[in-house]
């Protein structure tokens, strides 16, 4: 039906190596084409609409998120569909080598996020670009966000005295089953874009450009399940996820919850940065399927269909309603150990440790010990790491514990934004 988009979709489909029959493929293509047409025209499918798909789809990759600014992109930026989290350990010899690494990362990020044509090289030379996205790199709303782990502030580069005051190596919470091969790291590079090929292109580019100065420690791939008609996307448990979040357009609120402020307890160079938490949380999807919906709702504290708080029983209730527990001290409506109530109990003593900016992704990593490896890449940004730690400590008591298994991730500090074309990542830390 849509000649132009079919080959691309075919490639994506066969790329899995999944033995899909012609029937399955056909229905997939139908669905995909209908989705595209619906998004562009919102009218009945016809040849004219179908032909219009390709230019529109291409145009959508032209969106660029400014790289420079007071804060890094990829934090307040509305989450893109695709993400790669790369944790790396720095292998540079000395602080000059570290500075070179950060300059290189800055240069690559600046180019990749703006897009353009890589330098031409003779066909018998090593290519200047991996070519994954073709001869011209389109920005595709790519963001690259650099964060530093506590281990970078050891004695290797003389940074110990400049460490953000709350930055520590993630310690396991009581129900964590941390696998050290997917924990911590000197650096976290968060790569987000609208499409998978863009994030992979950027990852390969960055690793290729920084050979010798850092090495890969672990990697986590995430995707955002797209929202349906009801606004908020759902996680693999079928619940709307990430409903309550600070308004990123409210700069006062962002300063309060997310951004490190100047003249605070933090070192001066850190102003405009933020603590960056990543947690790799496996979902026991089989066990969850056996839980009746009413109990699932008690475990999470929200209605499954609507995403609304439990006081709203209609399926079309708004998920924007704020949960209320103040007249329910025994948790008869919203159980005390439900996820949302422990995350934010709405009490005076927990008010200061109940708001973070979440920017999570879902992950689907095939099989792990013959079990589906579906889970959630919990990602949050907060002005104080201790806010997250307090919140997660409360959640040690949550009823969701048997259905999830936190296995990796770490604590990092997202450095301030790169101010202008002369600036580079963490310049204030390194000079």
């Amino acid at each position, binding site marked *: 039906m849509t000649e132009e988009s079919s080959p691309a979709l075919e490639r994506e489909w066969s790329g899995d190596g999944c033995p899909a029959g012609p029937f399955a493929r056909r229905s997939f293509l139908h669905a995909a084409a209908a989705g595209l047409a619906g998004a562009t025209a919102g009218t009945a499918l016809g040849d004219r609409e179908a032909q219009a798909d390709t230019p529109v789809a291409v145009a959508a990759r032209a969106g660029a998120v400014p790289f420079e600014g007071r804060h890094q992109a990829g934090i307040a930026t509305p989450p893109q569909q695709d993400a790669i989290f790369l944790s790396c350990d720095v292998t540079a010899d000395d602080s000059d080598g570290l500075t070179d690494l950060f300059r290189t990362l800055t240069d690559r990020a600046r180019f990749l996020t703006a897009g353009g044509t890589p330098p031409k090289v003779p066909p018998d030379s090593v290519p200047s670009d991996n070519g994954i996205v073709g001869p011209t790199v389109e920005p595709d709303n790519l963001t690259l966000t650099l964060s530093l782990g506590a281990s970078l502030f050891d004695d290797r580069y003389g940074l110990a005295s400049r460490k953000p005051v709350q930055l520590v190596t993630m310690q396991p919470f009581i129900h964590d089953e941390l696998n050290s091969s997917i924990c911590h790291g000197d650096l976290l590079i968060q790569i987000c874009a609208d499409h998978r090929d863009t994030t992979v292109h950027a990852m390969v580019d960055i690793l290729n450009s920084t050979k010798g100065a850092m090495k890969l420690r672990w990697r986590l791939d995430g995707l955002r399940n797209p929202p349906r008609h009801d606004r908020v996307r759902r996680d693999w448990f079928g619940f709307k996820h990430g409903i309550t979040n600070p308004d990123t357009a409210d700069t006062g609120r962002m300063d309060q919850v997310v951004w490190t402020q100047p003249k605070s307890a933090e070192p001066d160079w850190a102003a405009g940065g933020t603590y960056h938490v990543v947690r790799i949380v496996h979902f026991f999807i089989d066990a969850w399927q056996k839980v009746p919906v009413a109990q699932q709702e008690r475990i999470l504290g929200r209605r499954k269909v609507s995403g609304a708080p439990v006081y709203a029983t209609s399926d079309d209730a708004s998920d924007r309603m704020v949960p*209320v527990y103040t007249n329910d001290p025994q948790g008869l409506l919203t159980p005390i150990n439900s996820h949302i109530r422990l995350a934010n109990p709405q009490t*005076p003593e927990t008010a200061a440790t109940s708001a973070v900016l979440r920017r999570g992704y879902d992950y689907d990593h095939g099989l792990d010990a013959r079990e589906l490896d579906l889970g959630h890449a919990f990602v949050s940004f907060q002005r104080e790491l201790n806010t997250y730690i307090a919140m997660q400590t409360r959640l040690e008591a949550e009823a969701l514990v048997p259905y999830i298994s936190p296995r990796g991730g770490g604590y990092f500090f997202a450095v301030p934004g790169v101010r202008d074309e002369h600036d580079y990542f963490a310049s204030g830390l390194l000079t």
Partner: protein
Amino acid sequence: MFPALRTGARRAPGRGRGRRRPALAVGAAVLLTSCTPAASGGAVSESGPHAAADRAAGGRVYVTNHFDNTLSVIDARSNKVVATVDAGVAPEGIAVSPDGSRVYIADNGAARISILDARTNKLTGTVPVGNNPTDVAVSPDGRFVYVANGGSNSVSVLDTRTDQVTATVPVGSSPASVALSRDGATAYVANLGSGNLSVIDTRTVRVTRNVPAGRTPAGVALTPDGESAYVADETAAKVLAINIRTEEMTAVRVGGAPFDVAVAPDGRTAYTADIGPGSISVVDIGGHRVQATVAVGTAGTDPFDIEVTDHAVYVTQPGADALAVIDPKTRKVVARVPVGNSPYGVAVSP
């Protein structure tokens, strides 16, 4: 199994409603007939007589601020905050003595009642009660204070001469609200967890019966004639009119999840504070219908508690850190008083 469960869960309440509806309609008809004079008067109630009401002007409005542990004292004439007082831990419900001299605050986070001297705006004492006291009511003669202990399934009775608890009455599960009859003979306790009202004989200080009151009664108020209790049924999105004597119930659907209910002094109108849409439903008591809906804030949560005088409807808005003042005649928000962090309870001195 999974889809079947979900369908079943969704369908069950619908069927229940469907079956109950005819019965409710009959109940409404009965009450309508018995209330005909009031109902016919309802049409003119907006311009009706408010002769008895002048004394309310110039009083004080008290608001507890749940998240910053303070009490805002507001001048009812100017709608200005005249004092902010420390008021325990996570203060919730609040009541004023009939002579206006003392204010009783449910100190939810500390399991006690705080007592404020209204003349000096100073706390004069605290009295230990049950866990999570959430609402308070004072008897019409000012002699006793009744405290709904949401965490202890009990009501504490406090003697105001000695400021001691003289009785602790076991009630239903998770009591959220308490109201007294005008003659002081009966206290009604809305049990959020057990879906009923505990009726307390204040002379014997015993529960004499439990009256079914919907799914999750979060607030209760009495009509001035003492014949009906109005109940905010939070998760059913209804306000229930319960005939005290016959226990007959009439339900009126409101805009969201009613968190509190108040009855106007003239007995013609009930108001519910509907969380979710952030609005007030104005319920015609004679006609058993929502007459008007007043938007008080941005949709989300607001409002929490509501109090009505002849002159004003006061509504706390925790999301806006404000007290909304509504003119009951025009049904417009005439003032929005900035108070503390997450205002909860509201009470008006005579």
